[in-house]
Structures are given as C-alpha cells and as structure tokens.
C-alpha cells in the first residue's frame, strides 16, 4: 500500500519552501530586514537540490515498494542533518561585507521545511516501528551535525548565534538555573508526593482532602500563583531575617521553587497513589499466601509494579516544570525565561528564540529520556 502521508507532507514542503522566504537579511538587530525566496537565497543549484530531495521523498513514498522506508529514513535524516548548510550558503551569498552589524536570520520557509521534514521523519520512524533507541540515535546524529556545522563558523552571522555569542556565560547560567529549579522542584515534590500517597493509602479519610487540595493547586494559573506568593513570602522574610539570609524573599528563586513544587504535586501524587493501589489485591494475596511479610510485599511486589506509572508521573511533572520555570523568570528567578522576556522587552526576536528553543529542547529531551526510562522499568516485556 502506498503511503499517503509522506507525499502530502512532501508536496506541502515543496510548495512552502518555494512560496515563503527562506532567510532574511537584517541591517542590524531591530530593524526589519529583507526576505529572500528559495532561488534568491541560495541560488539555482541549491534550490534545485532541495526541490530534488523533496520530490525524491514524494516519489519514493508513492511507490508501493516493500522496503522503501529505510532509504526514505536515510534521505530525510540526512536532509535534516545538513539543513543548516542552507543558511550558511544563504549568509555567504547575501551578507554585505562592509556592514559588520548586518545579520542573517531564519525565514518562515526554512522553519516550515524544518517542521515538515521533522514530521516526515516521525512518520517514517513510526512506520518502521522503530524503538526509542534508534530514535534517540537519529536525533543525536542530527543534533550533532548541527552543532558541528555551527562550530565551523559559517553561521557566525546568524542572528540567533549573535545573540548567543553576546552572552555565552549568561546562557550557561540560565541553563543551570533552569535545570536546578525544574529538577529541584521535581525532586522535592517527588519526595513529598510519595509521603502523601502513602498517607492516602493508609488512611481512606485523607484521600479526598489531599487529592482535592493538589488538584486545586493545579487549577490556579501559574502567574497567579507566583503573584500570590510574593506577599506572604516577603512578609515571612521580613519577619525572619534568617530566612532572608538564605535567599528567601518575595521574588527570586524561593517563590518560584515553591510554586513549581505546588504544581508538581498533582501528577506525582495521583500517579503514585494510583500505581500503588492498582496492584491487584489478588497478587498481594498471592504474596501473602506464600508467606511474604508486608515489607517484602511492598518492596518486591508493589513498588516494582508501580514504578513505571510513577516514572510516568515524574515525566509529566518534569515537562510541566520546565515550562513553568520559564514563566518564573517574571518574578526574577532566572532561567531561559529571562531571555524570552528580555527579548520581548527589547523586540529582539532572536533573543526570544534563544530562550524559547532551549526550553523546548529541554522539554523534548526530558520527555524522551523519561519515556525510555519508564519503558525500561516496565516489569515485563511487551506481550509477545
């Protein structure tokens, strides 16, 4: 059966890459630039190559061949890996020599190409029924190749790279702050959630209040929570100088962490509780009937069976925390969000990208790694 998805995506990519601007040349950081379509941006031969590759994908996926997905994987993967070369060619052709502050930036056409090629890759990997391992490997190859191309220096003029080069140390600092806040919150709430879940398992009376409270927390929008925490925390810091000395005050990392922990509780508590209680009572009975005591039952039976679901809770929480940490920059907590909001303030869109893209990348990476972890913790192989 011919695949219908890939031709649709391929044709769409082909159309958009010709219709939209591939790249933009800006005379400086904030003045809008002039866009260049495919031919004008990279010249005839490259334009031909791009079109040829896309047409090739369409054609290949159209053919009712049995083994067409492997070559397609190669073609699309390679295209993605080498995509930044287009920008390099573009910058080389169009960047004026005498304007040191002129910069190239990425046009809608390029983004569309990137997006549609990624979709094609996802589709191909899905049809191949590939495991997470292969997917991560391909991702690593693509990202590696991008970094390698960036290293080469041909993309120095890219606005995004310029923004990064203006503040490499800040970037690193933002990365660590972001990670520390997100993972700190996940860690703390994991511990807390475990205790709460145990409490809920022990005592039925606590179930509704605890679940009600944590879902209430989840409902309140992040901005409101950050805002609401300012007053009490400032008051607290004013009342107890010791706390202030620890760095706890109305704005900064303390309210951010507190809010992130509050947000993380619901998925953690729910998943931990459900996982531990959904171990069938008949299994527990079997264990007991064989002579296990309650401790052995918990550590040998319940916990191993519950672990994948608990890790799933950790995954949801982590992704959410990474996103919310970006919002926390509004109350001075730092992290990639500070680039986003600075960029919005300065109308420097590539600074916004410098904050947004790593946040997305972090979320995707955390998602992939934790999904893999959950899969590897699955107590049993997928049923044959």
């Amino acid at each position, binding site marked *: 059966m011919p695949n219908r998805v890939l031709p649709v995506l391929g044709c769409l990519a082909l159309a958009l890459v010709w219709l939209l601007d591939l790249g933009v040349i800006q005379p400086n950081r904030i003045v809008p630039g002039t866009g260049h379509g495919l031919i004008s941006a990279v010249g005839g031969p490259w334009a031909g190559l791009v079109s040829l590759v896309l047409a090739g994908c369409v054609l290949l996926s159209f053919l009712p061949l049995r083994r067409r997905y492997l070559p397609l994987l190669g073609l699309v993967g390679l295209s993605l890996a080498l995509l930044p070369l287009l920008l390099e060619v573009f910058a080389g052709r169009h960047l004026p020599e005498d304007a040191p502050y002129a910069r190239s930036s990425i046009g809608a056409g390029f983004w569309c190409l990137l997006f549609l090629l990624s979709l094609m890759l996802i589709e191909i990997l899905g049809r191949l029924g590939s495991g997470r391992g292969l997917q991560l490997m391909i991702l690593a190859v693509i990202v590696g190749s991008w970094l390698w191309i960036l290293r080469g220096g041909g993309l120095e003029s890219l606005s995004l790279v310029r923004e990064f080069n203006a503040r490499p140390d800040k970037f690193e600092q933002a990365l660590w702050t972001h990670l520390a806040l997100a993972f700190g919150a996940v860690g703390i709430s994991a511990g807390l959630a475990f205790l709460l879940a145990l409490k809920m398992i022990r005592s039925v009376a606590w179930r509704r209040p605890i679940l009600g409270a944590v879902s209430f927390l989840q409902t309140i929008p992040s901005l409101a929570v950050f805002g609401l925490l300012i007053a009490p925390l400032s008051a607290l810091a004013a009342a107890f100088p010791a706390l202030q000395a620890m760095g706890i005050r109305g704005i900064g990392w303390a309210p951010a962490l507190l809010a992130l922990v509050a947000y993380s509780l619901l998925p953690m508590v729910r998943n931990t509780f459900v996982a531990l209680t959904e171990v069938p009572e*008949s*299994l527990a*009975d*079997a*264990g*007991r*009937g*064989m*002579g*296990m*005591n309650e401790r*052995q039952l918990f550590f040998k*039976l319940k916990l*191993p*069976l519950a672990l994948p679901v608990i890790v799933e809770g950790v995954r949801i929480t982590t992704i959410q925390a990474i996103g919310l940490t970006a919002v926390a920059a509004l109350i001075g907590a730092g992290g990639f969000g500070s680039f986003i909001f600075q960029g919005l303030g300065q109308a420097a869109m590539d600074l916004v990208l410098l904050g947004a893209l790593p946040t997305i990348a972090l979320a995707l990476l955390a998602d992939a790694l934790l999904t893999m972890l959950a899969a590897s913790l699955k*107590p*049993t*192989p997928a*049923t*044959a």
Partner: protein
Amino acid sequence: MIELKNVTRRFGDAVAVDRINLTVETGEVCVLVGSSGCGKSTTLRMINQLLPHSEGQILVDGNDVTAMNPEQLRLNMGYVIQGTGLFPHWTVARNIAMVPQLLKWPRERIDERVHELLTLLDLDQATHANKYPQQLSGGQAQRVGVARALAANPNILLMDEPFGALDAITRENLQLEMLRIQSQLRKTTVFVTHDIDEALRLATRIAVMDQGRIIQHDTPENILRRPASVFVENLVGKQDRGLKLMSLHTVRDLMEAPPQPREPEPGADGLKEDDSLRVALSIMLWQNWSQVPVFNADGQETGTITRDRIIQEGA
C-alpha cells in the same frame, strides 16, 4: 491434618462462614463445593490466616493457627490462588522459586527444584523458564501457579478454583496431572471448585457448602447416592446422576478377568482398564457392542466387559 472447630467468620453483620466443623485427614483431598458466595474462599483463606476467623478454633497438625507466626504458617502451606496470581514482573522460574527464596534455600538447590517442578508439570525448561506470565497460555500459567505452590514441598495445599478460568480440554489435562501428582505425593489438600464433575473426580471427600454452612461432608459416591438435602441433589445435577456415578468407576472395577493376561489379536478393538464406565458405555452404544475385550496400559488383554453389566451395576 487440618481441623476446623465451630469456626465462624463475619464481615460486619454478615456471616460469611457459620460455625463450621471440618476435618481434613493427612493425605486426603477435601473438595469444597457450593454456589457462588457461599463461603468457600473464605474458609480456605482462614486456614492460612489470610483472613482471621471471628470465632472457633483452627488447628493445623494439632497446633492452633492463631498461636503461630502467620508467615511461618503460610510458608508451610502451598497456596494456589484463584486466577493464578503470578507476579507479572518475575519470570516463570523466579515465580516458582519464590517460596524457596523466602526460605533462603541455597542457589543451587533452588535451581534444581525449579527444574524438577518444570519437568513434573510438563513445562519445558528451555522454552518456558525465562518467560514472563503474560507470555504463557492460560493452562501453562495455571501449571506454574501449581508449581509455585508445590515449590518448597509444603505438606498442605490450599487450592482455590485453580482451574477455574480454563477451557474444558486444558482443564481435563490439569485434572489428570493433579491426580497423578497426588498419587505420588499425597499432600493434604483443600480444593475449591464450582464444577461438580471436577469435585467428583478429584475428591477423597466433598464438603458441600450453602450460605456459610457445611451441608454434607462425605465421599463422592455418597454425595451422589445419598444427598443430604434437595439443595445437594440439585447441585450435583439430578438428571445426570446416573451417568455421573458411572464416571466414578473404571472398567477395571467391572471387568471379568481371566487368570492370566494374554496378548491380544492384532488390530482388535477394545477398551482400556482406566477408562471410566461412562466412556465405556458411550463407546459401546456407538459401536453397538455388547461385550468387548479390555487392555491394560501395556496393551495386554486383561479381561472383558459386557454392556449389560455396566448397565446393571455401573450406577
């Protein structure tokens, strides 16, 4: 030996088991039957104290179970739970090795024992030992459940509808296997089922329960021939009793044996000594035989049986 003396179990105000007295002799298979919800599982689970009893006394080999450490008590009793209850995150081998591991047997002894049990229950070591429960068919899983219960060589077996969810053919095979194992090992067994044919086949004695009480506790033959009440009569299937009785006996019981077994004529048709009288009758009706030779397991002709005798004396 297991003794229940005036044992009662309540759930809230409801009485699940009501002052029952039951003695299961060493080496005996006691089968509990009764309609759904009559208290069979509850009775079983009180014996290994998964449920404490509300009143009365339960003795295992003369000792009161409430005085014993419950883990110790259970380690000495094999327990086959309804629906297998295998641990899904452990392999077949690890599931079987569970109790020996709890008992801290040495590694080699455990391996050896697992191997032995796999062989006993006709599961191939190479193909099955490292599978996970979900990768087994229902019948295989049931056998692993039985193996797990047997692993540490307990003197007592508690089996709660161990073949409950199986199709007729697998069920029959497991019953035969169970009879074979029992004839070798002679465990004191309490067996719960809702299948009367299974009960008749496996039991030394059957205890019929209704609404938490034991209505009758007797041998299969007596349960069929002399049901204590209308309830028992209905439970065992009034109409089909004649044929059911026939399945309690084998051809061996009614055949006329010559002094000496002899080699059969080549290609001769006949029955086996171990065939039940019911099977014998069905075949004879089908073939319209009135008399056939009987062969033993080695294929020697050991006697003859007549249709009239089956009909006269079979039921």
